[in-house]
């Protein structure tokens, strides 16, 4: 049984298929990378899984239960948490409050206020934001805001964590820290599916990579397999030769 | 048959004026993104200026030439002074829209009460072209036919302006994608102010036309604003042709309801509006 499974997931915007007939799965404990050029449908797929959008047609199953059409908060309480490509933090709230929201509302059984504060403090420690716990979130740097999103997502006690371009815009040191963080999260027993452009990170930490292009899945395999896949090199990495003729 | 003509033609005649008012609001709401609840107040001012000039002997239809440009300038300045700064201060478009709605309410109170202080609250009217013409047995007064014809001519002229001139095209471009229009070299602040000005001018001219066939009072504005909002929602946000056609549709609906039960006309507009918002917020012409 896969933790998360999609069958022929499709989504049209207007007449255009943003995601078309994508089959995918995520197994427990994995880190799965989702890559593809801009406009390939990665974020749309994320939105479909986290129920911001509803697939039409297609089925998404989580722990063998169909989850299409559920409200986002239900998905979250089932154990799927996510971050966003463009950060969506609660800017005017203190950092710790952002995380508390997660621990108060995210888990199936909400925590008491005191427990939530405790959990939030621990998580801030975990992602390395305890020093700025009481500053308004909007004053953080982009890297820290992204970490805050991770902490907030973790506070909801997820089984599956979806990271949307966590590393975009980070510098070298921050990048290494972020990779380390992801590994730490995996150690906690949380399954991860991440969209990423930074190849080094993807190749370095993913167990498996799914490549999307024009809304279609063009590859699915270990980093090595994907890097060597001819189709992927053609359409995504950009082969010099007569790629256009195929 | 006569009954049908009365309802249908009567609706089209008033619909012509609704179209003009709504096209104005469509420019302000669809392009400049200001849901201008004070729209009808510009109409009221236009109507009273015409009344005022008529009383001192000016031919009412000629006052359009004065009312239009004056209202345009007022609208233009108003946008540059109030709404531009709201737009620049707003973190995102949603905040801009709701803040400008509230500011428009403020302007509504200001303009209406200035009107009351100048002209009082009692209705005024004058008679002009008050003979009636029979159309297939249904009688209509000349002034309505003239007003509707004027409204339609202005509406079509404006449409041609939008499709055939450089500025008109810039307005349409700004309506679809202001940021990209800016890239093309369109001065967005200017174009939005222009739209707001044109909207105010259309309201003013519609007011002039209304004054030649209906009685006016300083409280008349909000009613027309409501009609315009319903028409703009009906026709599709930002769609000028949609507003033009929507005006006639609402005119006919309103006319039919008036024949049946005049007390429910306003309520019927709200029902249409609410149903539209819930069922098809994009409007009939929206995509």
């Amino acid at each position, binding site marked *: 049984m896969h933790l998360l499974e999609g069958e022929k997931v499709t989504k049209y915007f207007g007449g255009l298929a943003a995601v078309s007939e994508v089959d995918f799965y995520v197994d427990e404990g994995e880190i799965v990378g989702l890559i593809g050029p801009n406009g390939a449908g990665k974020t749309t797929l994320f939105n479909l899984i986290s129920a911001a959008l509803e697939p039409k047609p297609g089925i998404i199953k989580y722990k063998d239960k169909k989850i299409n059409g559920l409200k986002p908060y239900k998905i979250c309480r089932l154990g799927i948490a996510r971050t966003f490509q463009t950060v969506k933090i609660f800017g005017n709230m203190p950092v710790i409050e952002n995380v508390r929201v997660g621990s108060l509302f995210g888990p199936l059984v909400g925590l008491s206020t005191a427990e939530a504060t405790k959990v939030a403090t621990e998580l801030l420690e975990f992602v390395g934001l305890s020093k700025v716990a009481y500053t308004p979130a909007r004053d953080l740097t982009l890297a820290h805001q992204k970490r805050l999103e991770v902490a907030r997502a973790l506070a909801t006690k997820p089984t599956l964590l979806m990271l949307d371009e966590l590393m975009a815009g980070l510098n070298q040191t921050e990048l290494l820290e972020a990779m380390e963080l992801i590994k730490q999260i995996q150690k906690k027993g949380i399954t991860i599916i991440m969209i990423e452009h930074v190849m080094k990170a993807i190749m370095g930490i993913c167990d498996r990579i799914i490549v999307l292009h024009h809304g279609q899945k063009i590859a699915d395999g270990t980093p090595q397999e994907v890097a060597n896949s001819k189709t992927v090199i053609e359409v995504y990495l950009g082969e010099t030769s007569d790629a256009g003729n195929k | 048959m006569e*009954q049908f003509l*009365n309802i249908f033609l*009567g609706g089209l005649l*008033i619909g012509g004026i609704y179209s003009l008012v709504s096209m104005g609001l469509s420019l302000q709401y669809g392009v400049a993104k200001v849901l201008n609840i004070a729209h009808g107040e510009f109409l009221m001012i236009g109507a009273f200026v015409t009344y005022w000039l008529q009383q001192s002997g000016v031919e009412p239809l000629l006052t359009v030439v004065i009312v239009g440009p004056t209202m345009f300038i007022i609208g233009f300045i108003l946008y540059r002074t109030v709404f531009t700064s709201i737009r620049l201060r707003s973190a995102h478009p949603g905040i801009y829209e709701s803040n400008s709605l509230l500011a428009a309410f403020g302007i509504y109170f200001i303009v209406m009460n200035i009107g*009351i202080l100048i002209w*009082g*609250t*009692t*209705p005024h*009217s004058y*008679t002009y072209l*008050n*003979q*009636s013409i029979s159309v297939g047995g*249904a*009688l*209509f*007064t000349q002034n309505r036919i003239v007003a509707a014809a004027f409204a339609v001519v202005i509406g079509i002229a404006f449409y041609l302006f939008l499709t055939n001139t450089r500025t008109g095209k810039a307005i349409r471009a700004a309506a679809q994608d202001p940021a990209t229009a800016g890239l093309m070299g369109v001065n967005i602040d200017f174009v939005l102010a222009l739209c707001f000005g044109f909207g105010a001018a259309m309201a003013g001219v519609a007011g002039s036309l*209304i004054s030649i066939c*209906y*009685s006016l*009072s300083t*409280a*008349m504005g909000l*009613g027309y604003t409501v009609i315009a909002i319903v028409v703009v929602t009906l026709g599709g946000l930002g769609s000028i042709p949609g507003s033009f056609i929507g005006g006639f549709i609402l005119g006919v609906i309103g*006319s039919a309801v*008036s*024949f049946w*039960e*005049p*007390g429910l*006309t*306003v309520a019927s507009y709200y029902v249409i509006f609410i149903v539209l918002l819930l069922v098809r917020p994009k409007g009939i012409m929206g995509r």
Partner: protein
Amino acid sequence: MWKKVFKYSIPLTICLILAVSAVLVAGCGGGGVEEGKTEILIGASRDITGPQAGFQAYGFAPLYKAWAEEVNAAGGIDVGGTKLPVRIIEYDDASDPAVCTRNLEKLITQDNVDFLFGPTGTAMLFAAAPIANKYHKIMLCGEGGATTLEPKLAEMPYVFSVLNYSNHFQIPVFADLIEEKGAQTVYICYMNDLHGAEYRLTAQSEFEIRGLQVLQAKSIPMSITDMDPIVKEAKDLNPDVFCMFAYPNQNILFMQTAMALDFNPKCILVGPGCNFEFFNLMFGAALEGVCGEGAWNKNSSPAAAAFAEKVTELVGMGNQDWWGAIVYQSTLEYLQQAIEEAGTLDNDKILEVYRTAHFQTTAGEMWWDIQGENGGGLLPQECYAGQIGQWQSGIFEVIDNDEHNTAPFIYPKAPWPES
């Protein structure tokens, strides 16, 4: 720690300052104890900037003002030996009943007025009457009348309704008139407010009692700008009588539309508004035979003739009200005589006088028809100068079927003049 204290104390201090200053300001305005009255205060909440503002400003207010000036010129009203001048305090309610009740409370509790004049319009009267009664102040309700207030008057001893209104003699009189002339069918159009609703209900029942058929009773909103649908429908139904129970603006609109679409039934009743001289100035010959509620004119009596001249002088040409003016004046005269008879400003003592006394006024002998045991009062039919008027050669003739009438009822009315 002090930071926190400051953080919370500042907003709180502001609230405190605001609250205290509010208390002080209000206290200064209203806290004074009355002692040694030097004038008689009459309070009124009127429609100064609302929809009927024009009538208040030109038609009604000058009459009250002139009365006060006249009384003061004569040294004031004799209250138990000392003559006190009269002052009227007017607040604006713009026809908003909520503001009206608030104004009246302010007049009573802060300005300590002795008497109240009623507000303009039927619905406003409804709002004002209970307040007057609650604070035990005599209120003379001038420019408004309400059938549904009648049963309530028995519990409102301080409220005196001045004007004649729908079942208070007008519509029954009109129904008798048209029945006598053989009218069969009636079309009623009425304003969708209290005034219109009451006239419509009364008219419908009075007409049906007499076997007249009411073809249609249609309400119109205050904001109506297009009377075409109504007039076109009426023209189709072809009634003998058309009744328009709305305000002057709608009535003017109706007249214009009826002329433009050539709708000319045998009898047209429009009002209020038709009772004003400006209707005559506006429509001239076209008004011939149009009926309105009212009425009085210079032919009603010698006193009325003198008063008509005075009114024209006071309000100016066009603003003469051939319905209410004479009653308002007469009830003011009654008030003055009642105060003098009671010899005090104590409202309860004056009330005693109101219950029984007959006084001579411009309109003739006047007394009150007290409702219930000890309720408020209505004027009996004898005290009015007339109920229904009809424009005949530029005069609003009283056409009642009794000794008040000044001319016979013309039926059917003349066709519209060629334009």
